[in-house]
């Protein structure tokens, strides 16, 4: 369907001509404000009167025009005092989106509860819920729709007070552009800074500074220039590189659809002209590499297997090489299926179903990406978090994290800092309360496919869900992953771990011996391996002391080093189990969390925790290596059982009580347990 697309010229979204008197302001080059303003280059066109005439005279021509419109989503930021609802009401009114019956009701309501005397109070059009109308404030996000002959618009109307930060962030998350409203009588206020910061935080690149209520300051250019200069200085300080200022009056209609006669000194676009021509996000998303999160596997019968999703970025053509993450398997796109026939190409924003040339694993939560340019997978991140729940962030508690179509368990660490949204200062914080914004580390229970939020909203934006109340408690934006492995991609191999194990005719396992120093771990582990070896089992014994001579010789005995020691041993044991081996390890491994970490690395049932239970007194009496003596004398620090704790396993697969069993009997018991 060639008519699906409207060609759009890639004009610069932010032409620099005009300066303060005219178009956008580049905060990095403010001297441009001194250049003479060009006269308006655009003619008045497409007024609502002409549109109406076209509908009446040639409906098919009108529909053809409407069919090819693009869509812009934007947000208006400001409080009731700034005239936000009035502005939106005005946009609806000027684009003929108000029906006569609504207008009649509006006129009646204006006289009854309006704040504009006998004149129409446009704000009443917009304030929806009964509770809000009574209180005279907007308390939630409301979406409004209007269109001109070029575009359809969706406006997210959100409240401006600080206690509604979450609503503004919500409305901004889908917006291409933000209109920051300023009351010309008051200039740049705390809330202006807050709104600008939030819009910038959520990644909105097109900012309009609408200096409203110009009628109330007599359309004073000097005052306007002063406000714009003030704002430019602030904007630059928080990293906003460009914005488009304009003098308007929502109430009187100045520079909304038509250039105002009251501001002859202003030659930039009207608000509507700007909204009609600014570049939308989808256009920039298409230039990025291809990514699509799999929502649903379409399998109507054995002959068809398709993967459904909405393309997050880039484009895909039939025959393109793709990679499925996090698995890493590659194939090519054989079909792009729709009910109207197969497509040759699909682009960011479209919902499609892809078929592959090869039968490879792919399911909900996977990401299909360009084969030669895939995103990363990681399980530890730094992120900006906006807290949205009445109950504060519980550091260390497990929440559901949803990113794209991936749903994992995640914990948030103590925030590095909280941001004062009024001053942008960094504050120390132990937690995050409702509407607080902070930066913290986030750890997920398994690796997720992601991209930094600045590069890709879909693969970088996430929500946190309370596991008990199921409420959406936070929104987050990933900055980067904290693990060095971020650029390592998983290389898919054809010989699987099952094939390795089958060749050896055995089921892989990790026999994890834990217990105090001198409890008898190494002795029993050694006997177990000898017995398994005689039974033609392929084994390998990883001994604590031996590993510290090589792989882990850079590690000491601090808590961090001991955790890293166990992590490395766990990873090596996992690789050996993948190769089909029965791995036997003998490490004190005193901390429950680290043993559980290794357990989580392995498939269910392959981690066999064997607790060699020897009383401390007995182990100390044996003192084979003379270590307890050194620890008691203070010569050896951090020694388990003396000045460092041993956390007994809660429910090990096997517990060996060395007081009632010889090493030989213990080994037989263990071998029976795994050979059964």
């Amino acid at each position, binding site marked *: 369907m060639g008519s*699906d*697309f409207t060609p*759009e010229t890639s004009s610069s979204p932010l032409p620099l001509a005009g300066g303060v008197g005219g178009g956008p302001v580049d905060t990095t080059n403010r001297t441009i404000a001194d250049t003479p303003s060009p006269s308006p280059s655009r003619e008045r066109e497409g007024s609502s009167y002409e549109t109406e005439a076209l509908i009446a005279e040639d*409906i098919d021509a009108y*529909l053809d025009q*409407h*069919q*090819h419109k*693009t*869509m812009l989503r934007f947000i208006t930021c400001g409080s009731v005092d700034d005239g936000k609802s009035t502005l939106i009401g005005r946009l609806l009114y000027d684009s003929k989106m108000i*029906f*006569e*019956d609504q207008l009649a009701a509006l006129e009646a309501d204006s006289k009854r509860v309006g704040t504009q005397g006998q004149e129409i109070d446009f704000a009443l059009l917009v304030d*929806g*819920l*009964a*509770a809000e109308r009574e209180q005279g404030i907007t308390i*939630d*996000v*409301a*979406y*409004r*729709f209007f269109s001109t002959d070029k*575009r359809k618009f*969706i406006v997210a109307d959100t409240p401006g007070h600080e206690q509604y930060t*979450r*609503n503004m*962030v*919500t409305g901004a*998350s*889908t917006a291409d552009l933000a209109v920051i409203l300023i009351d010309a009588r008051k200039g740049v206020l705390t809330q202006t800074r807050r709104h600008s910061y939030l819009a910038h935080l959520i990644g909105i690149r097109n900012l309009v500074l609408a200096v409203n209520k110009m009628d109330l300051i007599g359309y004073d250019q000097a005052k306007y220039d002063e406000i714009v200069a003030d704002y430019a200085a602030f904007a630059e300080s928080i990293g906003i590189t460009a914005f488009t200022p304009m003098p308007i009056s929502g109430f009187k209609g100045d520079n909304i659809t038509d250039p105002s006669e009251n501001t002859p000194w202003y030659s930039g676009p009207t608000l509507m002209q700007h909204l009609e021509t600014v570049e*939308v996000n*989808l*256009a920039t998303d*298409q*230039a990025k590499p291809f990514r699509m999160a799999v*929502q*649903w596997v*379409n399998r109507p019968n054995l002959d*068809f297997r*398709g993967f*459904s999703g*909405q393309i997050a970025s880039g484009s895909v053509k039939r025959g393109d090489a793709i990679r499925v993450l996090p698995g890493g398997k590659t194939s090519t796109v054989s079909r792009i299926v*729709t*009910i109207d026939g197969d497509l040759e190409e699909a*682009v960011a*924003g*479209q*919902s499609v179903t892809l078929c592959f040339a090869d039968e490879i694993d792919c399911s*909900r939560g996977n990401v299909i990406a360009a084969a030669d340019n895939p995103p990363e997978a990681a399980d530890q991140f730094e992120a900006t978090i906006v807290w*949205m729940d009445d109950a504060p962030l519980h550091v260390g508690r497990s929440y*559901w994290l949803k990113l794209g179509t991936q749903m994992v368990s995640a914990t948030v660490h103590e925030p590095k800092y909280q941001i004062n949204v009024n001053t942008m200062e960094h504050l120390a914080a132990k937690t995050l309360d409702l509407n607080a914004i902070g930066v913290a580390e986030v750890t997920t229970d398994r690796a997720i496919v992601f991209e930094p939020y600045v590069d890709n909203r*879909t693969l970088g*934006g996430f*929500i946190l*869900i309370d596991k008990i*109340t*199921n*409420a*959406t408690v936070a929104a987050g934006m990933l900055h980067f992953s904290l693990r060095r492995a971020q650029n390592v991609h998983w290389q898919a191999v054809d010989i699987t771990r099952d094939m390795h194990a089958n060749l050896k005719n055995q089921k892989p396992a990790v026999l994890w011996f834990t217990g105090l120093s001198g409890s008898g771990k190494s002795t029993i582990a050694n006997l177990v391996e000898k017995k398994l070896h005689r039974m033609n089992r392929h084994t390998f014994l990883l001994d604590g002391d031996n590993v510290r001579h090589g792989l882990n010789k850079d590690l000491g005995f601090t808590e961090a080093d001991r955790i890293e020691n166990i992590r490395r041993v766990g990873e090596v044991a996992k690789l050996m189990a993948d190769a089909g081996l029965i791995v036997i390890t003998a490490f004190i491994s005193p901390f429950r969390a680290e043993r559980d970490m290794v357990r989580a690395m392995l498939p269910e049932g392959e981690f066999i925790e064997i607790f060699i239970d020897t009383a401390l007194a007995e182990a100390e009496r044996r003192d084979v290596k003379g270590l307890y003596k050194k620890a008691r004398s203070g010569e050896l620090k951090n020694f388990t059982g003396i000045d460092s704790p041993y956390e007994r396993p809660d429910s090990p697969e096997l517990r060996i009580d060395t007081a009632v069993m010889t090493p030989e009997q213990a080994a037989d018991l263990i071998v029976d347990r795994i050979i059964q």
Partner: protein
Amino acid sequence: MAKTLTHLKRLEAEAIHIMREVVAETERPVMLYSVGKDSAVMLHLARKAFYPSPPPFPLLHVDTTWKFQDMYRLRDRMAKDSGMELLVYQNPEAKARGINPFDHGALHTDMWKTEGLKQALDTYGFDAAFGGARRDEEKSRAKERIFSFRTATHGWDPKKQRPELWNLYNARKNKGESIRVFPISNWTELDVWQYIQLNDIPIVPLYFAGKRPTVERDGMLLMVDDDRFPLRPGEVPVERSIRFRTLGCYPLTGAVESTASTLSEIIQETLLTTTSERQGRAIDKDAGGAGMEKKKQEGYF
């Protein structure tokens, strides 16, 4: 040069994305099917979203027994064409008590529609129901989320709505809760009409002008669709060229005089008309300005 999706293509992609999320994350979804033009678009989107599979959920028609005959005919045909299961639910209590729009007024809507819908959802154990409501229809709808949660008793609390960011929807719910999902929230009436035209979607013939028997009553033009229509003394049905902008129970839905017989003409008439869409329906008027909001808190869709 970038290819830019038209607004209709973007709205379509958004609706399809939402439908797939619901199917992936809920246990027993259903699509409410009222046979109107919004339902027609919803059904079409569902077929697109899951093609070549049929949509993996049934259609549910909460029937009041007072729909236009043309609506019943199209309903049965569409269910057959789509390969979907059609469930028709009629509130047995309303049936037993003979509740009708002529004698019972507001009770008719409450019993057949509001109560009927709750009973149907409970009876079948659906945990998510797709509806075709749009935010441009009415002020309280403008603030409703796309995923709108209902308590175990089907109540709606506008102050307890979950934030919806980006295109991430949280479909997790507590025991007994259910979700109403509105995939075409961001469509306008014009979008719906144009989508029907571009995709050649079948709609009830009553949307097109035709000569039909009518009476004028309380400022509304009502169609005499069958012999259950009780004529008041002096009322004589008159043939008029009429059509309907919205379709509900025939005695509650006002017609407009019109000669619009093609989709283009319907759209033209809609755009040039000076009254908003729901004016033909009595339902928004019951409780003053807050009519729909009040109904929704009580469990109306």
